[in-house]
């Protein structure tokens, strides 16, 4: 991300920070003076302003929040490019091609039609217009500028994430009036404008606007609305609601106290679940499930419904552990508590009633932590067999932020793929493969931990044997050896890169910018605080969204350039 800490300017910026503290009220100034030294890495960090494409989930969530969860959006967005481990970073470089815009327009038209529909009480379908439009036209067959202005102003503010300028609102009211006249239907006129709003680049793209930071002369920060949007898309995976926008309008988000109040409100909201699920779905690369399929002859129980449930199982486990139980993030990798559904029962071989129920794997179960969930095991395996390499690579890259080099283009996989191979287990095949020194280099950093998961086949089903031969699940991770998957789980839980990787990913996801080498002091600082707080996820979220790295931007104000030039 380059959370810019411009070293040549460090002294000047520190002075600026001190001055900002001095400009506060007396009592608070004293408190600031007595507080621990402000770490430069934290206080001086910033991130570049971004122009990001909203995700399909964010679009759906936003529609649901504004118009109600019974309004189906069904918007299809092109897949994003995973960048630095996150799809969210790919959103900064994504566009909307013409073909995709056609699909979005169809979705927008359907949403607009649902918003203004009159329902059918005979069919038990309620009238959306009666509940969503706060006024009624004098004549439903004619334009009603006053009513249109009320509704479009209210809706536009939520969709555009800031109040519509008067001229723009007037233009929309006029457009609604023209359509209403032509169609002889006030509501059809409104629908045409809503449809236009829903495909507006200003709605689909999350654009960061900046302003000078009065508390830090010479620096710039996100303006209140952009901060509100960044907060909301991060914490709720949706556009900000009326309360957050009001805080932006009132200037509350421009004060530390105001930011804290709003952030605490957002962290306590049920909508946080969408934000947590959105982040971990991205971090765990669960988009793989969008087109994951298993060989039905090899894994007959691994149905499409089971794979969908596998993704849901892990997301439910994460939310329950981190938010509901306020658990230690690291314990996600050793917890035996999870959720179970009938689709997963035949794979885990456990009885399951209808719906989702809490489930604890027995203490002697080989299922320990989310690495032993079907989601991780099946998505990092081949369609018809397991893969120690893919699992080890995923563990390194997704959870420890340690990139694994791509294999050379001419790699010889014959020993692994030969169906007549004399090797019974994956360990045997991998060992043979590693006789090739070209391959050995990378496999040594992926396979030792991946082999510890070999007790689970490519569908994530437990097996004690492979082709009738007992599986040896021993392994090692960065110098720590273990004899089975429980040992792997402990090693991952206590790996120093585990929490720092989460910090990197959360920081990147929230700001839309990759963390770079220069940002290490900031990551170290946040990781240290994360540890001090017992690795509680909400504390990490709170710290990040209230940090300058989240709301300050790297653009420098013209006057600072002048000052630098003068020096």
């Amino acid at each position, binding site marked *: 991300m380059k959370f810019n800490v411009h070293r040549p300017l460090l002294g000047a910026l520190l002075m600026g920070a001190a001055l900002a503290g001095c400009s506060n009220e007396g009592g608070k100034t004293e408190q600031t003076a007595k507080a621990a030294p402000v770490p430069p890495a934290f206080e001086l960090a910033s991130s570049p302003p971004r122009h990001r494409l909203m995700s399909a989930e964010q679009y759906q969530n936003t529609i649901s929040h504004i118009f109600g969860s019974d309004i189906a959006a069904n918007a299809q967005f092109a897949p994003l490019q995973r960048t630095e481990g996150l799809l969210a970073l790919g959103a900064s470089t994504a566009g909307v091609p013409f073909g995709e815009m056609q699909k979005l327009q169809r979705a927008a038209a359907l949403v607009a039609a649902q918003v203004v529909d009159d329902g059918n009480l005979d069919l038990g379908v309620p009238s959306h217009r009666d509940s969503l439009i706060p006024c009624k036209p004098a004549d439903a067959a004619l334009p009603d500028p006053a009513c249109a202005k009320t509704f479009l102003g209210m809706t536009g503010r939520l969709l555009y994430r800031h109040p519509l300028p008067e001229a723009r609102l007037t233009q929309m009211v006029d457009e609604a009036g023209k359509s209403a006249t032509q169609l002889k239907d006030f509501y059809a006129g409104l629908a045409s404008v809503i449809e236009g709003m829903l495909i507006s680049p200003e709605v689909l793209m999350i654009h960061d606007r900046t302003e000078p930071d009065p508390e830090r002369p010479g620096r710039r920060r996100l303006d209140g609305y952009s901060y509100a949007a960044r907060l909301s898309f991060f914490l709720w995976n949706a556009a900000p609601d009326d309360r957050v926008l009001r805080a932006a309008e009132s200037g509350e988000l421009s004060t530390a106290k105001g930011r804290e109040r709003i952030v605490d409100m957002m962290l306590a909201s049920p909508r946080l679940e969408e934000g947590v699920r959105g982040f971990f779905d991205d971090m765990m690369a669960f988009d793989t499930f969008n087109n994951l399929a298993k060989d*039905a002859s090899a894994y*007959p129980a691994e149905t499409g419904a*089971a794979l969908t449930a596998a993704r849901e199982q892990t997301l439910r486990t994460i939310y329950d552990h981190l938010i509901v139980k306020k658990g230690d993030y690291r314990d996600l990798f050793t917890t035996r508590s999870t959720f179970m559904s009938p689709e997963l029962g*035949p794979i885990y*071989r456990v009885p399951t*009633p209808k719906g989702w129920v809490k489930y604890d794997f027995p203490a002697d179960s080989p299922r320990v932590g989310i690495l032993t969930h079907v989601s991780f095991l099946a998505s990092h395996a081949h369609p018809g067999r397991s893969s120690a390499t893919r699992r080890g690579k995923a563990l390194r890259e997704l959870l420890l932020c340690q990139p694994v080099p791509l294999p050379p283009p001419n790699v010889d996989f014959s020993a692994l793929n030969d169906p007549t191979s004399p090797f019974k287990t994956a360990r045997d095949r991998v060992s043979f493969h590693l006789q090739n020194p070209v391959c050995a280099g990378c496999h040594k950093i992926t396979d030792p931990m991946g082999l510890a998961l070999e007790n689970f086949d490519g569908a994530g089903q*437990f*097996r004690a*044997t*492979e082709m009738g031969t007992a599986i040896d699940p021993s392994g090692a991770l960065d110098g720590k050896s273990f004899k089975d998957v429980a040992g792997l789980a402990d090693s991952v839980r206590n790996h120093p890169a585990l929490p720092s990787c989460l910090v990197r990913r959360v920081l990147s996801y929230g700001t839309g910018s990759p963390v770079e080498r220069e940002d290490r002091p900031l990551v170290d600082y946040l990781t240290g605080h994360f540890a001090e707080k017992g690795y509680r996820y909400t504390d990490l979220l709170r710290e990040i969204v209230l940090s300058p790295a989240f709301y300050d931007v790297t653009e420098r104000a013209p006057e600072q350039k002048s000052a630098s030039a003068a020096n």
Partner: protein
Amino acid sequence: MITSKKLLGGVCAAALAFAASTASADTANPDVAKVDITKTRSIAYTLTYLNWALQYTADAKECPNGFNDGPREQFKILFPEDGTKRTYIDTVLSREITGFYPDQFKEPFTLKQAVGPVAPGLNLDGKVDADDFISPAGEKGVDNQFYRGLGCIESYRGPDAYNNFYDTQEILEGTYNRMLFEITELDSLQNDPDVVVTMYRGTHPVLRDASGNTIGFKGIPGGTEKLDLRWGKKYVQRYKGKIENGVLITEPATYTFPWQTFGTPTDETIYQMRMRLDLNADYAEGLMGGYLDFASFHSKNMRSDSTHHQSYGRLPSALLYQTLQQIADGPVDPATGKRNSVSSALVSKWAQVYIIGRDNKTPVAEAPAAARSAAGER
């Protein structure tokens, strides 16, 4: 290959192909962990396939006189289009009445029975009688007189017979026929001299594989079933049994079970029913033999199949009933002095399931006095 191979081996190529397609694997995946019976001392299975055990060959050698006529053919013989003026009552309704009251009217036809020495089934009476069959595996004394009646009726001749298809569809897609059995007091799936087998009705459909198939009518093991202890209370029946070399054998006792076809719910009763099923942790498969209460079978055909459906399968229901009366070899009902049942066998397939919603106080249904009497039981 499990029981089906032992019991059905030796039948014709068509039948073998069927057996192979329906019992192609012992377990879903031998490497994948199964239910741990050492902890539960129990295992349960859900029904995935049920059809009468018949001997049929591709060239129908067992039917030297051909296949039987159905209601349409019988109607044409009885009422040819020869210009005779007939009333609706004397023709159509008369035939319907004959079907529903087969004890009151004598059918003017003779059923073409299956012949030959070989038929699948079990030796129910422990004797080797002159009219007994030899099983495809060579076991003598097989009691399956029901095969003589059904063997030359097209709608029962597998593997893709009309009745087989719809019966199987009801089992796989519906829940009315959701029969379960649970083995308790279980120490080994290989050998256990004393186990308890309890029959239940469940509420969930059979699990299918990732392609939507049932893997040769075997389904996917590892599903979960909830017991139907309300409407299905009457189907809770308990038997003593044993396991020898991986084969479950139960002691004979009356078994009443739900058998819905074409959406019409009915019950079927088999007296002195005993199971002989090959077991493993994923599947159970094999024969259930006993004396079929053919009145319940006939009633099922009339109520669910109707003349319309019987015509498609050329099933002469009243004639079959009257023939079964003649060849009945079940116990004499002391109340009537007649034999109301005929030796029979069912081919069954079951997939392992977990049972939830169990109530340890679940009452076990006792066979009605009339049924016990008919079965010669006290």
